[in-house]
């Protein structure tokens, strides 16, 4: 099949950027979306032009490195699918596609479709962990975890930090990302000692990084390739409010 691509080209963070139009020709329906871009890039290189920059690594939908907007939708039209797992059989000959990077003040564009998501690492640094020194743990069976809790924790822990939730949100909020980590650890007995401190510190860092507030649009859940539920944001809000009812010394 042949497609027309309008791709956001931006040489660096300081460049204003613009759309440029390319043809993708003889694309196999069995190829993935990124393989289609590989094909376009190979031709650009041969023609002496600079290839389109986009982040990717595992191409199995798990590392979270890939992601951009296709016709205004993060990771493209398929639910629960990263762009590396999107295959061209979902498109038709003659389709016209608009590719843009995530748009959010907290995710500066680095080049073309690649953005800087280091803010996510800093949110995790603010409390997205359990303080446990290597070698200090009791036997793995010393702490029992009810199966339902383990499942809920795992549902939240599946987040791949791709940033689609931020890109989908009209406020560019990273609440779904933040809430997922707070829920993952908060559902486990091991995560209880730091539960409320974690909620406060991660939310403070989230705000400091310039992400917007959640106003319950729910676009994040729809865009999420891992189907993370907005219920976790409600849970985050509960943890956050509960922490405010405590005296500072009781936070831990």
């Amino acid at each position, binding site marked *: 099949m042949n497609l027309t691509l309008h791709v956001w080209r931006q040489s660096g963070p300081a460049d204003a950027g613009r759309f440029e139009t390319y043809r993708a020709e003889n694309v196999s329906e069995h190829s993935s979306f990124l393989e289609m871009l590989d094909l376009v890039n190979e031709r650009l290189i041969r023609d002496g032009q600079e290839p389109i920059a986009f982040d990717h690594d595992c191409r199995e939908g798990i590392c979270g490195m890939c992601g951009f907007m296709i016709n205004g939708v993060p990771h493209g039209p398929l639910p629960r699918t990263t762009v590396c797992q999107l295959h061209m059989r979902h498109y038709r000959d003659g389709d016209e596609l608009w590719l843009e990077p995530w748009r959010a003040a907290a995710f500066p564009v680095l080049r073309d479709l690649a953005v800087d998501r280091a803010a996510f690492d800093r949110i995790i640094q603010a409390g997205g962990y359990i303080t446990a020194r290597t070698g200090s743990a009791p036997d*793995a069976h010393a702490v029992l*975890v009810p199966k339902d809790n383990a499942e809920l924790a*795992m549902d939240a822990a599946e987040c791949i930090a791709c940033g689609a939730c931020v890109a989908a949100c009209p406020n560019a909020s990273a609440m779904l990302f933040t809430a997922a980590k707070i829920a993952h650890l908060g559902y486990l007995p091991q995560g209880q000692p730091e539960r409320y401190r974690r909620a406060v510190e991660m939310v403070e860092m989230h705000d400091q990084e310039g992400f917007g507030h959640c106003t319950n649009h729910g676009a994040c859940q729809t865009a999420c390739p891992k189907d993370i539920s907005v219920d976790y944001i409600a849970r985050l809000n509960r943890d956050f409010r509960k922490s405010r009812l405590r005296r500072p010394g009781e936070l831990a």
Partner: protein
Amino acid sequence: MELRANVPDGPLAQKWDRHRFELKLVNPANKRKYSVIVVGSGLAGASAAATMSELGYQVRCFCYQDSPRRAHSIAAQGGINAAKNYQADGDSVYRLFYDTVKGGDFRAREANVYRLAQISLQIMDHCVATGVPFAREYGGYLANRSFGGAQVSRTFYARGQTGQQLLLGCYQQLEKEVRAGGVEMHSRHEMLDLVVVDGKARGIITRDLLTGRVQAWAADAVVLATGGYANVFFLSTNAKGCNVTAAWRAHRKGAGFANPCFTQIHPTCLPPAGEHQSKLTLMSESLRNDGRVWVPIRAGDTRPPHEIPDAERDYYLERFYPSFGNLAPRDISSRRAKEMVDEGRGVGPGGIGVYLDFRDAIQRLGRDTIAERYGNLFEMYENITGENPYQTPMRIYPAPHYTMGGLWVDYNLMSTIPGLHVAGEANFSDHGANRLGASALMQGLADGYFVLPLTIGDYLVRTKLDPVDTDHAAFRDAEREVNERTRRMLETKGTRTVTEIHRELGALLWEKCGMARNATGLREAIARIPELREEFWRTVRVPGTGASFNQQLEYAGRVADFLEFAELLCIDALDRDESCGGHFREEHQTEEGEARRDDEHFAHASVWEFTGIGSPPRKHREELTFESVALAQRSYK
């Protein structure tokens, strides 16, 4: 090059304990005076960096991805082994040790493997404590599943995303230490050279992948945790960025490279679909717990699978290996699949594939149970192929997946360059000629959480380390070489893209040095690789500049190193004139087509010393002695 394995004396079961007592300790107040560089942030790198920071060392950690959380450990699906014997099914540290040595076809160092099995217990404890959401039973206890090459159920898992969850566990510990100030993290930095001063590893040269800035970093010790080299085959299950550069650059500076020909071809991957293919996708081996592998009995049978009655199906793994059945180890399962395809009994487009069928398991257990166990894997399969595995059998075919070979290390995980330590897949130590499923995660975490943080202290105390900074000539020379290479790649302005050349190299290796190898083919590859390397430097086209975010330039540097490394891989495969584990030489097989080892001549690790490009590498041997396990032909019948 001298190979001293430094295996402690005493009975196998007491070696690690004894060694820990004999290791010199660094006074807590002195630890902060030492700096360590960790390259790579996967299970081994992130866990080592986090733990060394907890102990008080100053750590700098580097990764090429945009965040340490993206390292390729994240893609491991099935699980992690630990000898907890929670199922009370006869498991023990000794049995895990035995299975691993046997699974590795008796080409691993006994003492290391035993230590690995011992540490597996602590790994589980620590991972639970750090919040890894493992699968649980209704009573709240941890659940287990079985895996290839074992008859006990010792694999712990988190759905089909065990690697992801274990990596996020390490990543969170790493970020905790970044916040605490013990780790300085440098994402989007690629190591392009190792710096050796007075014979000791004292730093690295990196390129900032965003700005192109080439920079030198000095330290008291360096840890490489940079993964494996399966991308030398172009098509593999590795992430696109996985590469051999850090290990190869260290090899060029004097680190011995051990057993490069021990590569693992994973039996359950999606078959290639066409010319556009950029990588192959693994489907977890855990699927073989419930899926049955088969091909039609008759060659050229093109009927759709549901029209082929049971009597006309060959469940060949069950036929060849009645006691292990579909859970036969990876090397054996892969080879048998190739045999079926070579006999013309392969299925799917081009006949490159075998079926992995869940029909019977769905009938026995119900669709819901199967969905609970493998739901995400089925969904992934359908996404890629457009076929629904609940209704029609999966098609699978082997693909390069993991590399057992790597930089040689002693019992302390130190390479032949003092101060250069190597952890995880990047070293050669624990898996011999074939790795069992669910053992890579175990090894990465054992090395990073529990071995290196102790042994590195011993090195630092015992070694006289003169102060060195990046003004030293060795750093400036290495920096200059890196810049010179970059300049050459950009100035060639030839006609072939990096991908084209990499694809050609990969096809050559897959054909001549893939699942089955022979002397004639290997000699052809050894003759062709230098030509291809020369073509690369003469005809490659790398667009853009060095001083910017330039993904083609990154890729070109990696492929340039693969083109040097590939030759060593084939030389080792030719030199190892026996079959063992993942290294199958067609000249050496039993009547039933199993690998025939030659313990008399090859019970050793082959450790190669670099002598220059175009000059034959020098071989050294670490003889392997088996005191606890009797050498035997592997049997899974």
